[in-house]
């Protein structure tokens, strides 16, 4: 399975980084997460989705600062 990195900035914008998921499984995981979050009173409205190539994914994982750089 993969890893999910969650960024919440001071304006409240939520960015989810799905790392190492096979095929389109990250989309299923994202849907499940949205469904559960609704129970907790949080609605994620569809925003921007960027697919990353394998090398981009590795770049994200290897970043020493734990920051995402695109």
């Amino acid at each position, binding site marked *: *399975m*993969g*890893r*999910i*990195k*969650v*960024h*919440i*900035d*001071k*304006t*409240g*914008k*939520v*960015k*989810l*980084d*799905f*790392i*190492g*998921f*096979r*095929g*389109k499984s*990250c*989309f299923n*995981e*994202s849907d*499940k*997460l949205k469904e*559960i*979050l*609704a*129970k*907790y*009173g*949080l*609605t*994620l*409205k*569809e*925003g*921007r*989705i*960027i*697919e*990353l190539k*394998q090398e*981009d*994914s590795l770049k*994200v994982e290897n970043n020493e600062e*734990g920051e*995402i750089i*695109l």
Partner: protein
Amino acid sequence: MSHIAEYKTDIKLNLGMRNSSLSLNVLYKTIKILAEEMKADITNYIETSTVRKEMCMFSLRGKGFERGIGINIGLGGEIHFTYYGEYKEIAEDIRKSFEQKYKAVALSFALKELNYGVDVVKEKRDEIILSAEV
């Protein structure tokens, strides 16, 4: 394959019979975190400018906002922040910080429900980063 998804978000507590306790747990945990961070006390009232007590669901009282900032839930599940006097700026800071922390707590609970182990990588006012792994 990996992807990054950015979302706009809405906080509206789920007050349905089955899920209200879940939302309230997130709310209470968020308020506790905020209180710790601001070295504030959690009470259930604020004071008006004539020192009359006004009850609310929760309130935060601390240095610089001694009369308190009230936190209430509207009938539709929306969160209201109430204050008297000159607390406009601090109330807005608290609202922003509350919103960020509520989302972090809700996401952390939801990811745990999906059997992820969740760690806080970074927690500052400008950004909170969580890392979740099965």
